[in-house]
């Protein structure tokens, strides 16, 4: 059976097409102001990549901040449940998943079946989310994709004192004025965000192994800081920002199978 997972994130729409537990199509479209159009575009391009017809699709499950705005979805799943199932899809030995997206940070501990045991979300403070690194890279005039590798070159620890993304930007500017090398500032930014994420995730208890998903999993500087903070080596799945969509697709397949079983019995 073919199932589809849709992740309506704060910034991007992600769609994954799954057949017999294998990803056969995926697409990411930046939502902007027209979420409906972005959703349609993502669905079309993922279906095209998968080479499927619409009537082949057994079930569609939506997740993410905008999961209520997916009219074609037959059911929905919280971001937390989706992150857990998505992480387990890639790593059967993962028991904790850290999901850092554009505007949210999330820590989820789950059991071997992917059932959530404990979770925590931070959607209030930008200083613990991907938007923070974007703003700091901008302040340093470094392209985002170079920001992570740049911080790996640093061997100096500079504490960031600001607790807030807005004030942190002025702290970065002060560091620039003090002639601090950009690589050290980049590391300070990643250390700050990692320590915030770590203190949040410790609330749910960190159980090995730990998977990191969401857009920030592309940032090697952040991964390095997080590994140091958690004193472990986090697992990074391929295409980390699709993890929640994959989780939704896995659940869609399960629920679809259950529904058709129920239909046959009755």
């Amino acid at each position, binding site marked *: 059976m073919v199932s589809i997972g849709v992740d309506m994130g704060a910034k991007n729409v992600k769609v994954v097409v799954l057949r017999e537990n294998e990803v056969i199509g995926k697409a990411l479209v930046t939502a902007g102001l027209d979420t409906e159009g972005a959703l349609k575009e993502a669905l079309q391009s993922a279906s095209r990549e998968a080479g499927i017809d619409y009537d082949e699709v057994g079930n569609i499950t939506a997740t993410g901040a905008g999961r209520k705005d997916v009219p074609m979805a037959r059911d929905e*799943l*919280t971001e*937390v*449940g989706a992150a857990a199932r998505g992480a387990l899809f890639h790593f059967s030995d993962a028991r904790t998943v850290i999901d850092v997206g554009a505007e949210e940070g999330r820590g989820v501990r789950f059991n071997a079946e992917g*059932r*959530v*045991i*404990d*979770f*925590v*979300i*931070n*959607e*209030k*403070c930008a*200083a*613990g989310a991907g938007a923070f690194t974007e703003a700091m890279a901008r302040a340093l005039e470094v392209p985002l994709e170079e920001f992570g590798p740049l911080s790996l070159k640093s061997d100096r620890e500079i504490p960031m004192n600001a*607790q*807030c993304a807005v004030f942190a930007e002025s702290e970065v500017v002060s560091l620039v004025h003090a002639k601090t090398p950009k690589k050290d500032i980049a590391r300070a930014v990643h250390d700050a965000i990692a320590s*915030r994420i770590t*203190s*949040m995730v410790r*609330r*749910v208890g960190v159980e090995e192994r730990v998977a990191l998903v969401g857009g920030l999993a592309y940032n090697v500087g952040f991964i390095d800081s997080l590994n140091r903070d958690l004193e472990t080596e986090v697992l990074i799945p391929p295409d980390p920002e699709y993890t929640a969509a994959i989780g939704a697709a896995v*659940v869609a397949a399960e629920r679809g199978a259950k529904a058709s079983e129920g239909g046959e019995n009755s």
Partner: protein
Amino acid sequence: MKANYGYHDGSGDFFITIDSNLCTGCVECISSCPADVLEMITDDYDDVVAAVKDEHRKKIKYSCAECKPVDEQPPLPCVAACEPGAITHSW
């Protein structure tokens, strides 16, 4: 499942934890809350459990302020109303 609703910011940790394994869905907590912070939801596993309303999650420190005077804090109504002890506050 333990669900932590709230946030961590520069001034501290503000989380209400609801243990869905303990929550019986009796709705006592909902009527006990003077700020109308809690609601019943159906979670991913089809259990009907108490949760913190979406609109309060980012300002829970302020929503809960009236039950948390600085001096001599009486027992929190939601915590007291919950017989199985499924609700805890982090601050």
